[in-house]
């Protein structure tokens, strides 16, 4: 086996850095949505401070989820073919339907959550802004208790659909890889599940970071209960995610299947940095310890220590998930299908599908998030501050009559 050989057509990596970014971004979408759903569906009250932020972040990332794909396609102008003539024997054909379904669901969810605010803004603003809000409100200014109660129920239903929806959106991405028998590094039924859990990890980690940054910018205190709850979630999901990732590799190694001849060297040589150093040690072991300290010694920790620990752990986990995507997408193409040799892939900084393009694609959702936040604020909502009632506060809307907060309820 010391003589390497690549199939002549295997000299090139066809799925570039862009295809690493695509599952990374949809993962953030799915993960952020799960957090918002935990609040909206499961009434986890501690997550309230990030409930709206999670929704907006999910929406902002979803808006740009197709961008890396479009940048990668040889013929982006034909991209609509995937919806015009979806070949349903292909896993990829589901993309148009799943993506649009999820975009619709998320748009409706954001719209319903913000409807009271939109109407409030439509009433108080002037000019173009007023027109914008009026259009967003679809010209209906009904904020009667009955309408709000209905809205709230619908939000819950949509969020409940959104959880399997998020699983579908991201499980589908995992399936794209997991269902290719030609590639032993991809072909495993575990792939969608691994993708899903790492998606939740990246989503929660992203929210911890964005939430802390937002609070810093706004000069407001960080809600420690919320932060601790997210850190606990993060710890749970990262443990599951990393266990699954390891399980897949241990099984392959233990089975000593034919493909281990190529996957073994792949992990220990070609991917030694991005797999062993980044994905396993820096990205998993260290945050695992940090989050363990945070979870188990939570009440002994100073606020600032808690903030820093969760921030660092989240940052490392974001890197872990990115390196995991890299190791899957690029790792699966680094070895030739001859199983006899490896090629090399180093994205250039300035090429069409290079590092700069990836960075821009990753920054764009944050810009969009900033813009959306200007129109639909994630933190100060007029519906909460002006008339002192938030229809999304909790799930106690048994009848339309009791949609006003009870005295002494959480505010």
């Amino acid at each position, binding site marked *: *086996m*010391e*003589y390497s*050989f690549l*199939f*002549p*057509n*295997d*000299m*090139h990596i*066809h*799925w570039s850095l862009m295809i690493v970014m695509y599952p990374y971004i949809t993962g953030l979408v799915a993960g952020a949505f799960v957090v918002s759903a935990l609040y909206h569906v499961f009434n986890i009250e501690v997550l309230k401070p990030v409930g709206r932020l999670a929704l907006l972040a999910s929406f902002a990332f979803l808006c740009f989820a197709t961008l890396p*794909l479009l940048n*990668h*396609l*040889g*013929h*982006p102008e*034909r*991209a609509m*073919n*995937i919806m*015009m*003539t*979806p*070949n349903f*024997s*292909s*896993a*990829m*054909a589901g*993309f148009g339907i799943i993506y649009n379904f999820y975009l619709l669901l998320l748009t409706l969810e954001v719209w319903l959550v913000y409807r009271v605010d939109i109407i409030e803004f439509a009433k108080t603003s002037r000019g173009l802004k007023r027109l914008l809000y009026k259009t967003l409100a679809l010209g209906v200014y009904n904020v009667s208790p009955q309408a709000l109660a209905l809205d709230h129920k619908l939000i819950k239903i949509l969020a409940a659909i959104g959880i399997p929806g998020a699983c579908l959106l991201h499980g589908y991405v995992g399936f*794209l890889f997991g269902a*290719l*028998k*030609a*590639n032993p590094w991809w072909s495993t039924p575990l792939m969608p599940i691994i993708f899903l859990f790492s998606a939740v990890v990246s989503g929660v980690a992203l929210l911890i970071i964005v939430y802390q940054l937002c609070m810093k910018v706004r000069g407001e205190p960080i809600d420690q209960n919320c932060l601790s709850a997210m850190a606990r979630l993060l710890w749970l999901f990262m443990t599951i995610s990393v266990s699954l990732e390891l399980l897949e590799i241990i099984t392959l190694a233990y089975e000593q299947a034919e493909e281990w001849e190529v996957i073994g060297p792949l992990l220990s040589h070609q991917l030694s940095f991005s797999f062993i150093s980044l994905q396993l040690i820096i990205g998993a072991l260290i945050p695992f310890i940090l989050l363990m300290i945070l979870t188990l010694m939570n009440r002994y920790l100073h606020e600032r220590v808690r903030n820093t620990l969760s921030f660092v752990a989240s940052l490392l986990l974001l890197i872990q998930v990115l390196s995991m995507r890299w190791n899957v997408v690029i790792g*699966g*193409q680094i070895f*030739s*299908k*001859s*199983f*006899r040799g490896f090629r090399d892939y180093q994205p250039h900084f300035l090429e069409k599908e290079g590092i700069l393009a990836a960075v821009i694609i990753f920054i764009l959702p944050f810009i969009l998030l900033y813009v959306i936040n200007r129109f639909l604020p994630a933190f100060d909502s007029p519906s909460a501050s002006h008339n002192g009632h938030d229809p999304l506060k909790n799930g106690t809307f048994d009848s339309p009559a009791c949609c006003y907060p009870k005295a002494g309820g959480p505010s």
Partner: protein
Amino acid sequence: MNKKEGKIDEKPEEMGRRDFIKKGCEIAAGTMFVGLLPFKSARAEKEVERIPRPEGHPDYNWEDHLYAYVIDTRKCIGCGMCVQACRKENNVPEGFYRTWVERYEVSAEDAIKVDSPHGGENGFTADTPGFNVSKGYFVPKMCNHCSNSPCTQVCPVGASYKTKEGVVLVDDKRCVGCGYCVQACPYGSRFLNPVTKTAEKCTWCYHRITRGLKPACVQACPVGARMFGDVKKEDDPVRKILAKERIQVLQPEKLTKPTCFYIGLDKGVR
């Protein structure tokens, strides 16, 4: 649908608002129906099914053919004329291969050395010293035109398909260049053409075989290691080989059911 629109143009002034809305709904519903059932309605008027034919061959009927390919690795001398011919015939871009030839050298210690410089296009030269070859052979490779082809399965837009003669083709006017088929092919037979930006692969020289010629690689082979035939023809030599000889396919465990068959494959060949 067009007829309905024509009717509206004839007498627009006679229609009240209600009628107009009604008509509009009808048109919209009709259009939606057309959209949902694109092929049936589009071809409904043509009662006779068209049969695609190459120019000057009015008798060609693709239902009468089922092609198969046999590669006898015991005969291959590794001259690479087939690779060269393929590139010239199909205008294959440099650095990519619709067909290629691999050289296998096995030492007495069972170490396997495989190479394919430029896909074997310029032939092979004496190999590096120090490797003690106890047996060696050449293996020409190409698209296996699998019956259960993973590449056509995964094409999201229906740009890759199998013709009735069993040839797997790519429609370069619909291909979006996503590269999923390239990933799905276990044989490395597909690539993304850097010029057209679409997926490309061996077509068994579809433009030649439908005109009664042999694929360029088969015609170029000086030793008859590459054979192309039609299993629907009684006296076809390839059909006879498939019926009488012990044949193998590449990576049979993938269950892709190739229709490109091999004679004399060694265990090291993947």
